């Protein structure tokens, strides 16, 4: 009896865990990267982050197996000078739809292990404070691309 109870509990917990991951309020759309010429170069990823849930969440890390390093950055203006600054955390509040795009927020992939070739898909992991790790497929667009098709 006790065994069955434990099994049910375990199944229930498992269900809850998968359900919470599947029902995550955080959604990632239109993830794309720009093609690069050679390995070792720096790649850049843009995407749209949205939060349809009732609670605020926060993006606290990014990583990808194709690059030695990855990080979130933002371009800001100081007078007439545009600067790039590293960002440790990005608030994703209920109802937010945040677009990472050229000239603003973006994800840099440093020391790429392979050149990003047009048309291929690369994996990217986004780490959220509450939603945990979310994997996304990033499509590689041509060298001169400026937005998702």
């Amino acid at each position, binding site marked *: 009896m006790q065994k069955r109870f434990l099994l049910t509990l375990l199944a229930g917990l498992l269900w809850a865990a998968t359900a919470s991951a599947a029902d995550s309020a955080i959604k990632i759309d239109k993830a794309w990267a720009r093609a690069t010429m050679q390995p070792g170069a720096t790649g850049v990823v843009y995407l749209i982050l949205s939060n349809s849930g009732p609670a605020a969440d926060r993006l606290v890390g990014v990583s990808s197996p194709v690059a030695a390093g990855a990080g*979130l950055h933002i371009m*800001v203006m100081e007078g007439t*000078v545009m600067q*790039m600054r*590293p960002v440790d955390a990005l*608030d994703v509040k209920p109802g*937010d739809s945040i677009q990472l795009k050229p000239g603003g927020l973006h994800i840099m992939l440093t020391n790429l292990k392979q050149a990003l070739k047009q048309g291929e898909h690369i994996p990217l992991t986004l780490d959220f404070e509450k939603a945990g790790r979310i994997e996304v497929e990033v499509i590689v667009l041509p060298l001169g691309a400026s937005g998702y098709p």
Partner: protein
Amino acid sequence: MLLESVPGDNAVLSAVPAEVLLRFDEPVTPGRVEVLNSRGESVTADERPVSKDNEVHLALPKALSQGTYLLTYRVTSLDSHPVGGTIVFSIGKPSQGGIAALEAKVSERGSIWGLLATAARLLLFISLVGAAGGTLFHTLVAHDLWRLDDPTRHRLVALTLLGLVAAILGIGIEGAALKGTRLANIDGLLSASLWRMGERTSLGFSLTVAAVALLLLLLALARTRGKLSLLALPAAFAALASLALTGHAVTAGPLWLTVPVLAIHVLVAAFWLGSLWPLWQAVAERPSEGALALLRRFSAIAMPAVLLLIAAGATLACLQLGRLGELFTTDYGLRLASKIAFVLVLLLFAALNRFWLTPALAARHGQAAHRLRISIGLEIVLAMAILAATSSLGEVPPPRALILEAEAQAANAHAGKGDSMAGMDMGGATMPASPGFSVVTFAAGGQGAEIELSPAVAGTNSITIHLFDAAEKPLAAQKVTIELSQPAAGVEPMEHELTAESPGLCRWANAPMPLAGNWKIQLLVLVSDFEEIRFETLAPLR
């Protein structure tokens, strides 16, 4: 564009470094690079900046006392635009006060030269339109370049001289802007090194070509009846083409496109605007047959030429702006928009002259000559306004340069050069260390705030805030109030009013945050009397 400096901006160092380093995204010509103490005195007067590839090094004296220093620099990049900036760093302990005033004074010195450069450019444009454009008119329309009457010849010679002076002064102004020489420093302004520096830049090269061409034009015009008059037309062409050798427009796209398009734009514009004065005179002096023949010949050339001019101008504008929205949101765009507005009014007048007033003159209406004269006079006023707007474009970076440079900066900063950046290990990855903690948060209206805390450790923190609107343009605020609290530890909200250092940038150098843990940060941004934006976020302190 500066990618990195060592020491970094607002750094506090424990010891005097051997040198300061500036790294740019492209090779630069260093102008003035010096370190000032908090009283504004140079401590590196004996040192010369050394440039190597994209880097500029300046040795520091060993015996620097404790306090705050300003590293100010002026360099020129490929597109001839002088780039300047100031890095503040401290040795030991920061000095108290006075730094902001000193920074303002240093940047003001640069803006005087920017103003003078605009004035010199305007004079050069007026000369090129009047003298070179006038030469084109007298060759193509009036067919009388070989037998000019004395008043006309004297006018052309005077305008050429004006341009020659403006071009030569322009070289000196560029050198002075680069060196950051004070206006009152006469010896410095006359020094050979200043002029050589101005001449070495791409703008200096373009101005030198213009000066030589104008000198030839002067010789040709001064003796129109001799063989030298053959020189006038090529000299006029060369003087106008010199403008296509430098500037933002040239670096906006591939050279095979921008240089010819800009040359055509300049050539046709000078012909069109340069014809106005002789036409105005002709209508006044010979209202019947002479003027009519001139007007008809002018209009036969001008119609297709102006279409070409507009096509060339539109091409350049598209390359510069990137997208139409920039026309109304950036400083450059607004200046360009005012130029376009003037051109549109000028086109209205041109159509009025072509389709109503010239036929009226042909039909010998009594008032026709008088009206035509007023209309061409107004066109001349508009032409001056267009030239003024054009010369002011050179002092502000075009939007595409801002975006491109920032992307170049992004790529370069990450090209694996971790050597001088303090690296931080993130799961085997080296990332440039942020000075403490930085967070980006958005308000309900889509406006964003990037908030940095340094060092993000319990104690006194420096808080830097960049505010931007939904289109990622700096958000100019009337008033920014910050509220810090730590409800969990019973720290009640502590309010502080921030002043904007530049649009969208606020700093609180010494925010008291005595406890570790999660701090709640609230920003109240008053954008107008009717609009207040609220940001809220959390920042963890160690």
